[in-house]
């Protein structure tokens, strides 16, 4: 995946929310954030396959995806973070 189009937005969002960005996983380039809360944890990641998709899951069954474009990527990440916080703060 080529993340060059979204990296500036991701870096800005990462800095603003103090969410460290992970970029490597196994042998692949990825863009991932991880959140830990009182009752669980969640992962937010971005896929770029022509379209841009923001995913969030709780490492179990709950998962949501947001299809976005570059202009709305930051808002989608905010939404994903809200979802992740909700999941991580409730059993």
């Amino acid at each position: 995946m080529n993340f060059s189009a979204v990296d500036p937005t991701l870096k800005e969002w990462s800095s603003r929310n103090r969410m460290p960005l992970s970029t490597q996983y196994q042998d692949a380039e990825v863009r991932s954030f991880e959140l830990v809360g009182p009752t669980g944890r969640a992962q937010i990641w971005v896929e770029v396959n022509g379209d841009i998709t923001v995913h969030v899951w709780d490492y179990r069954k709950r998962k949501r995806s947001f299809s976005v474009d570059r202009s709305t990527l930051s808002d989608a990440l905010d939404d994903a973070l809200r979802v992740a916080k909700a999941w991580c703060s409730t059993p």
Partner: protein
Amino acid sequence: MSADPLGLHDPGQADLNLYAYVRGMALRAVDPLGLAETAAGFGKDHRPTEANMSVQAGPAPPVNASVPESGQELQSVATPQSLHVSQRLAHLSVVDSKPLEQSGPSEVLFAALPPVRIGKAVVGAVTGAGGRIAGALEKRAATKLADAASTEGAQVATLSSEKIAAANAGGSAPGLLTAGSRVPNAGGRIISFVTPEQRTFYRVYSGDSSVGSFLTSVKPRSSAFAREALALPPGNQATFVQEVIVPAGTRIQRSRALPAFGRRGGAEQFELLEHIPVGNFGPGVPLP
């Protein structure tokens, strides 16, 4: 006796036996290396027992990490404590045993989990795997490990940044491995060893990514299974499978795939910790 802390052995399959790692003989057999069961009491083990073999417990969700509610002072969750077990000495050492700071309920909110910065070194952390790990160690050490690995506290434990830096500094050029901010991928008991003899592994990939460091010892039966059980990254559709000839004397790490990217993992995986010749990666064959 303990159930497999990794849970089901074969995600997506009807394997509900948590003692499958010893083929159901939990009272008679143990699986000290996570590679094959052996008679309880370390009777026979044909697996590699190199002098430098090390066993570590894999990362667990750091549920109780805390940061101030304001979010203005988000702190790293890492490094409250770390475990490193030398199986050769059956000796447990707990390093960085600073207690994890905990705050009151009103203060607990969220913490952004820092990525693992690592080149060649293994980042070991604690899971609730104390029970099974106990089968691999002397009782005294095992008890201590089990206590430390208790899920009650659900505390994250990783190597300190200093130790990771030291490990990286002492490591060889990672070659296939990319140093940087990595999403953790190794769970369960993490075993590093040097292959005693040449051995064939398998690797799944898609596109033209015909060389890589993550392998399996068994050929996956389908793309879907490989993606799910190995928690492959989004870009790897496991379209192809190839044989990989790993020469004798290659440093390699065995673990179980952690859940990631919407995939639950759980399968056994091997990571090359050093270069092997590109020619050892065979041609890709379409995977159903």
